[in-house]
């Protein structure tokens, strides 16, 4: 049911955890529905220099979260916002139909973290 890539990112997830002193934090999903993703980013010069995730959810949710962190690390914020759930899906080699929503979670998580960072900047400006 899952591709080898999904299994790999699920069993050996990259970038697990939360960053102390994160510059932006996104928390999306709904525990009631079975998946919550929390993503924290470090930003320097408008570029994501570090990123971590924590996910409550199924294997697809965990793998999507993990691969998404890799996909945005080193990217500018604008570039990161270009990452869509399609990209996550492609990177994973696909997901079963009923799990597609997990890749959306990752896209939303990135967006939320970037927005959090930007609103903090706006506030402190």
């Amino acid at each position, binding site marked *: 049911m899952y591709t080898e890539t999904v299994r790999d990112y699920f*069993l050996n*997830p990259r970038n*697990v955890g939360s960053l102390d002193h994160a510059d932006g934090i996104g928390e999306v999903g709904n525990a*009631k*529905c*079975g998946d919550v993703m929390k993503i924290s980013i470090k930003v320097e010069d408008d570029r994501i220099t570090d990123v971590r995730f924590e996910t*409550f959810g*199924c294997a697809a949710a*965990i793998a999507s979260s993990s691969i998404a962190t890799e996909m945005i690390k080193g990217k500018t914020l604008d570039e990161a916002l270009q990452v869509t759930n399609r990209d996550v899906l492609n990177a994973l080699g696909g997901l079963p139909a009923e799990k597609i929503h997990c890749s959306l979670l990752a896209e939303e998580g990135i967006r939320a973290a970037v927005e959090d960072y930007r609103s903090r900047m706006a506030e402190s400006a």
Partner: protein
Amino acid sequence: MEQRRVYLDHSATTPVDDRVLEAMMPFFKGDFGNPNSIHAWGRRVREHVNGAREHVASLLGAEPREIIFTGGGSEADNLAIKGAAFALKARGKHVITSAIEHHAVLDTVKWLGENGFDVTILPVDAQGMVSPETFRNSLREDTVFATVMYANNEVGTVQPIAELGAICRERGILFHTDAVQAAGHIPIDVRTLPVDMLTLSAHKMYGPKGVGALYLRKGVRIPPLVHGGGQEFGLRSGTENTAGIVGFGEAALLALDRFENGDDEKERFLRDKLIDGIQARIDAVLLTGHRTQRLPFHASVCIEHIEGEAMLLRLDAVGIGASSGSACTSGSLDPSHVLLAMGLSHVTAHGSLRLSLGKDTTEADIDYVLDALPPVVETLRAMSPFGRK
């Protein structure tokens, strides 16, 4: 830790016992005849189908004539429920079931609800028990039929079927119980148990998949679900699944042997060791289902802060087969209706884990699981935004 392969999902399905398979083998090629044929090829097979009917009957203390072979447990449930409704619709339109039934019962009763019947779905308590008091209070003048499962597949709780059946008998209500999880695992005797219909499925008791049976008490009349050639006393048409039926018969005999040997006691011991071990080694764990009124082979828990499917796949990666009522295992949005009916929150229910033992499960298997599960839980909790660090 050496990797083992430990299958603890016997509630989902069981392997076919060696002796069952051996009993089945002749009926594919040598004795392949249609039991309805009058030539030698058919007559030989008819005898064995009759024998299997006796064997399955003996598991329940029933008469052979009271056993209707079907194409599985779900079909037997549908036959019982739709048959009862059809037979009784002129007498009344109220039917009762419980909130924790298997979908083969629940969805069938709901279908009746969409087709002219009034349906009451009884709540259960936190242990997944139907209360006879609540049951009695739900009865109406026009109640004609009730169905409550013998033992639940997800949380293992065994229901007070004798009491519920007695109430039905008192009130002239036809009573069915889905005993798919119980049959062959706990003794059932319809000579004393007041049920009119009872469902079994071979593959849950070391028989083959694709064959089930409905016990239909003598004198109870229902129409068939599958019309046609009139096999199975007119109640299930279609050429008999002879190998499957013979295998089912053998599985019934073997289950009787296991009762005789007290094998269920061994199973109960391992089950308790597993439940107690999990609770001792992992915090924030909730036993689901009744602690003692439960199937001897059935352990089920909810493990807080993590999600069931993720647990299953990590257990799978270390050779352990288990299941979960998490929404993510079914592709639906809600976790198991059973766990929700017991009052569990969605979040807790997402962390459900079912470990169902088999007759060949060893203590070493249980030890292996007790060693393998805590690190899986720990790893997932470490990834979880809810996990205490």
